[in-house]
């Protein structure tokens, strides 16, 4: 298990790099927001993996904050910069 943490972490980070292509292409702002959501979830996964690897308890709290913030980002996006219909 010890030996697999770093490869999995690196794989997730490379995954994110590939995902950046979507931010480049768009075409709508929502597509780019989806990528930022993927960044949030992957950050949580990487932080949890590293919390185990390094044995640093506080990294789990950081992961919790990341999970919360990425949800708030999406809500703010929908409400403020990409509002839908008039009946909101």
């Amino acid at each position: 298990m010890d030996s697999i943490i770093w490869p999995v972490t690196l794989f997730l980070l490379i995954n994110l790099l590939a995902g950046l292509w979507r931010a480049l292409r768009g075409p709508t702002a929502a597509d780019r927001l989806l990528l930022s959501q993927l960044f949030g979830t992957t950050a949580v996964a990487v932080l949890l993996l590293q919390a185990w690897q390094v044995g640093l308890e506080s990294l789990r709290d950081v992961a919790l904050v990341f999970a919360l913030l990425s949800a708030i980002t999406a809500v703010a996006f929908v409400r403020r910069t990409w509002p839908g219909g008039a009946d909101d």
Partner: protein
Amino acid sequence: MIDIVSSTFLLAGAAFFFFGTVGLLRFPDVFARLHALTKADNVGLGLIVIGLALESASPAVAAKLLLIWLLVLLASASVAHLIARAALRRGMRPWQQ
């Protein structure tokens, strides 16, 4: 033994993150991409959390991991709903063959 099981969970979780990214890159519209993204969010992170929880030092740590996963589950479900609703209201229609 438990090492093998949790490593398998971690690898399966990483695979779901990979599939989610491939879907995000390949699918034709926002709705389909939302579908791909929620796979990575829910199943990918879930499998990684299960793998780590099996190896965790204490039940408290395992419970905290599961709570983080539950928060992400709740958040990604509501976010997917919000974005899909906003897209529909802006007149975007799901891609059809």
